[in-house]
């Protein structure tokens, strides 16, 4: 497998590139860039959702799919497992990563908190794409309380 930093550098450049060409600093422009990043993550997630579970046997229920995301997908992309998975058993799952690799090099604590969402958009799309390939429509959002701890919230309607 290629060195992990290669993906981190590429990701950093993607975010920087999208923000460098953004002449409209208002909320409208920012949202556009965030959804572009999310869209990229979505397409990558769809392909990964097809390729990674190839050797595993079929999933029996939703929770199995989420566990697969936390273990196999996270390990494949970030070389570590998700630190915690919580659910209310009604379609909402919270995945928490205590040292998210894409946020680690930025800061540790509250500095740069407003910039953090840009670096999470791609990963939200990644999760949403993988879930989509595995047959689950969902809405994925991310939140950061203090870098590098971040939480991804997956809401599955009509669960």
């Amino acid at each position: 497998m290629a060195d992990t930093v290669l993906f981190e550098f590429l990701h950093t450049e993607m975010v920087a590139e999208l923000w460098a060409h953004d002449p409209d600093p208002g909320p409208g422009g920012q949202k556009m860039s965030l959804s572009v990043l999310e869209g990229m993550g979505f397409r990558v997630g769809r392909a990964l959702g097809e390729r990674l579970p190839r050797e595993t046997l079929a999933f029996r229920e939703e929770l199995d799919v989420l566990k697969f995301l936390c273990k196999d997908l996270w390990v494949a992309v970030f070389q570590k497992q998700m630190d915690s998975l919580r659910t209310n058993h009604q379609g909402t799952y919270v995945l928490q990563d205590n040292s998210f690799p894409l946020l680690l090099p930025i800061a540790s604590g509250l500095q740069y908190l407003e910039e953090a969402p840009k670096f999470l958009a791609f990963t939200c799309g990644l999760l949403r794409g993988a879930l989509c390939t595995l047959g689950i429509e969902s809405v994925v959002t991310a939140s950061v309380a203090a870098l590098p701890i971040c939480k991804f919230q997956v809401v599955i309607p009509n669960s």
Partner: protein
Amino acid sequence: MAVCIAVIAKNYPLYIRSTPTENELKFHYMVHTSLDVVDEKISAMGKALLDQRELYLGLLYRTEDYKVYGYITNSKVKFVMMVDSSNTALRDNEICSMFRKLHNSYTDVMCNPFYNPGDRIQSRAFDNMVTSMMIQVC
């Protein structure tokens, strides 16, 4: 050697190819009816509470001319393969390995950035792989 191979997404086929190109409609119809059998097998497996489900579904059904085999991926994409009944030399594990090759090629198609998931498969590499699995007629 297969007579007809189909890749089917949730409601519509992504790819169907059959070798004797006349009577194509008959093959399409048989693939369509085999989808019901696939659904039956999946729901039966779910109820049986096996530890995990296999991807290879085995022989779906058999007519006097053809045998139909099925396989489902984790993304609920179904592969259906029809084999001539007179071809008794083909064993189950050979069919299984043909499905695995199909699955690998399908995964490659998915990872192709020029392919939009949900479109018909137009990749020549996929076509060539399927050709290698189908019988040569004339």
